[in-house]
């Protein structure tokens, strides 16, 4: 069948600048560029280009420019280029349209409608460069009250504290599964988390034993497919996370395409090499809050109650009620993943249409747990499209204890959010398991870039806190008086628990 689809991008090459070095030919994993021996020239197949910018960055003479294909259909606000291309693609294949990364629609980024406070005249601001500024964060169930006793000269804590995670910054790397990404990326995340004093999350594909040494900085995930879950894996992690859902694809499971299931991945997941790794939507031992409690306590039993258990859900309409049930089921940490949360592969229709923004879910969950008097029994990690330290600070003011960053971490390593992770040929060496591509991520360099990102964001967080006259992150947590909304309706402000700017 002849395809009626047109290429999305046009590759322009300045032939005067091109020195025929073939770097672009070698760097593009989609075979966009090719060298013609007879012409002694490099040409391009535009239809293969995903605009990942790998060739642009690596071209030594800057000869390449990628442009959006100007051959657009007639302008139409309903039948956009994207909508028409999608229909044509499905008419030609009869398939579900896949995509990668998070929702790219501009509907609802409330962070951009929330503004932070700063001290003026009264309550002086604090300079974090010269004064102590505390952003260390503990995650886990906190006691209702503390009992202490004086024994001689010492004050001794009598209350037994549930296991806690200690983070030097309120930012963790979110779940990225081994298989969706390569061992090098896992290693980069693990080393950066270890160096900076935070944690990375294995995702649902297990953990290669070569990375067990970073266990104290690892959250091990348990999902419906139970890939790579065994006693050693549970033992080495600092915490265990039960994955119920993720923001990019609430309510559906995952298929790791067979192309990505290499021998190493197959060994870790314990499935045949080259087969699709199927994670069904439900965990078949969890059909209720009571069942969730059963799995939480199975994991606590398996690790002798030594580590917190987190439960991750996608932000959906009833998140507040579900979160209440999760806390009562024994979750020490609740991870909420908003609609802009990313993925290695999801049906585009689900990614862009299912779930709710993290801002609203976070505000309603925090409010509900406070009203029920159980907010201290679990920490909240918010995730789903956090782009900057400002988003982090706003989330903490809305009630989060910490945030998960996934996309931002990948961008730090080289990702350009071209949304083609599901092809398994990521030219930046991230969302791939092919050895010749994945070696493009050098853990020495990538972990350095990640540490730099955490350092930069942490300093910015301290600056913003100092500006508000706050010197400990606990004073900011759930402190919605430091937020004001702009351009929001009364209903939106009500759900966010935030007043209008100027009020």
């Amino acid at each position, binding site marked *: 069948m002849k395809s009626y689809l047109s290429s999305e991008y046009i590759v322009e090459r300045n032939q005067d600048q091109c020195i025929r070095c073939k770097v672009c030919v070698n760097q593009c994993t989609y075979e966009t560029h090719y060298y013609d021996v007879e012409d002694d020239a490099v040409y391009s197949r535009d239809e293969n280009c995903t605009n990942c910018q790998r060739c642009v960055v690596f071209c030594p003479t800057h000869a390449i420019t990628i442009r959006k294909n100007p051959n657009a259909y007639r302008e139409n606000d309903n039948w956009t280029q994207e909508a028409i291309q999608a229909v044509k693609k499905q008419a030609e294949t009869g*398939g579900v349209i896949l995509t990668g990364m998070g929702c790219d629609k501009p509907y609802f980024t409330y962070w951009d409608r929330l503004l932070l406070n700063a001290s003026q005249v009264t309550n002086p601001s604090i300079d974090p460069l010269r004064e102590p500024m505390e952003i260390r964060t503990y995650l886990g169930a906190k006691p209702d009250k503390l009992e202490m006793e004086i024994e001689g000269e010492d004050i001794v804590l009598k209350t037994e504290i549930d296991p806690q995670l200690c983070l030097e910054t309120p930012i963790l790397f979110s779940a990225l599964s081994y298989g969706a990404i390569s061992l090098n990326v896992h290693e980069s995340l693990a080393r950066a988390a270890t160096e900076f004093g935070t944690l990375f999350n294995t995702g649902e594909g297990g953990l290669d034993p070569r990375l067990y040494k970073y266990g104290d900085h690892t959250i091990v995930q348990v999902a419906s497919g139970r890939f790579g879950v065994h006693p050693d894996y549970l033992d080495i992690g600092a915490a265990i996370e039960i994955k119920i859902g993720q923001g990019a694809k609430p309510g559906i499971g995952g298929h790791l395409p067979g192309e990505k299931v290499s021998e190493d991945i*197959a060994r870790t997941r314990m499935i045949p090499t080259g087969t699709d790794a199927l994670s069904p939507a439900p965990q078949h031992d969890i059909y209720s809050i009571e069942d969730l409690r059963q799995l939480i306590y199975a994991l606590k039993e398996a690790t002798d109650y030594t580590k917190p258990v987190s439960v991750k859900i996608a932000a959906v309409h009833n998140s507040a009620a579900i979160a209440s049930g999760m806390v009562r089921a024994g979750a020490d940490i609740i991870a909420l993943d908003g609609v802009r949360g990313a993925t290695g592969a999801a049906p585009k229709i689900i990614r862009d249409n299912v779930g709710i923004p993290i801002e609203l879910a976070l505000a309603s969950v925090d409010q509900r747990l406070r009203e029920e008097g159980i907010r201290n029994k679990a920490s909240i990690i918010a995730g789903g499209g956090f782009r900057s330290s400002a988003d982090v600070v706003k989330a903490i003011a809305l009630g989060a204890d910490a945030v998960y960053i996934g996309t931002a971490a990948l961008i730090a390593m080289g990702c350009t959010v071209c949304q083609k992770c599901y092809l398994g040929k990521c030219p930046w060496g991230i969302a791939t398991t092919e050895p010749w591509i994945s070696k493009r991520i050098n853990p020495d360099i990538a972990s350095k870039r990640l540490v730099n990102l955490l350092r930069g964001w942490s300093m910015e967080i301290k600056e913003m806190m100092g500006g508000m006259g706050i010197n400990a992150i606990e004073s900011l947590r759930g402190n919605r008086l430091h937020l004001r909304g702009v351009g929001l309706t009364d209903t939106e402000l009500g759900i966010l628990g935030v007043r209008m700017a100027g009020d």
Partner: protein
Amino acid sequence: MKEKNIMTDKNEEIITKFGSELLQTRVKIENDVAKIDATGLYYRHLNAVLRILNGKGVERVDINNVYGQRYIGTDIDRNIEIHIYGTPGNDLGAFMNSPNIFVHGNVQDGCGNTMNGGLIVVHGGAGDVAGYSMRGGKIFIRDNVGYRAGIHMKGFQNIRPSMVIGGSARGFLGEYMAGGVVLVLGLNRQSIECPEPKFVGTGMHGGVIYVRGEITDLGKEVEVMDIDGSDAELIRILVKEFCNYFGFDFDEVMSRKFTKIMPVSYRPYGRLYAY
């Protein structure tokens, strides 16, 4: 980062708190066998006692009057023998690595959930999702099992978990199976309580299911295939072990023809997407 310094040893604490009652009245050591009376004992206390006995190097534990206590055998890292008299609760041997568990009674749901090694022998029947995501070891169940037995069973190269079911199974047997072996003997298939399993092997993409006799209601991802020499050998080994545990006559069990069910494709959903 793990904050180890603020942790207390929970087991020691439980024993200190309930020490005299738990260890003196509930546990008796007779001829190197530790006997626990589990009447009314909270599962967390029972499992704490098991951990302590395991740590003290006990080789065999008999637990009497078990009545619904969950997670027995979880987090026991030695190859000890545990005999359970009564009805253990859900998730018996969940994430288990090493023990050999013999249940003299029925088991509830999630028996052997994500089990990594060891042995579970059930002199009775099992509830739903028996052997969920099993990665290693063996489960032998004398009677029937509930729905979705063997779901997500895994395997890689020579690591092949196996589950033998003496009776029949409910629907979705071996769903999403990615590896391992399920053998259903159907020794009581004629009885009314034990219908033929439906949607067998739905979503299966690895591993193998053997059924003694015929089976017709299959998931669309699997097909009946011919038994070859290595299949026959594997069935013989598993049936022999099954007969040893439960006293069935080996020749009689082997007298019927066996059916083999395997996935048609390793990529059942390979054509689902538009790339």
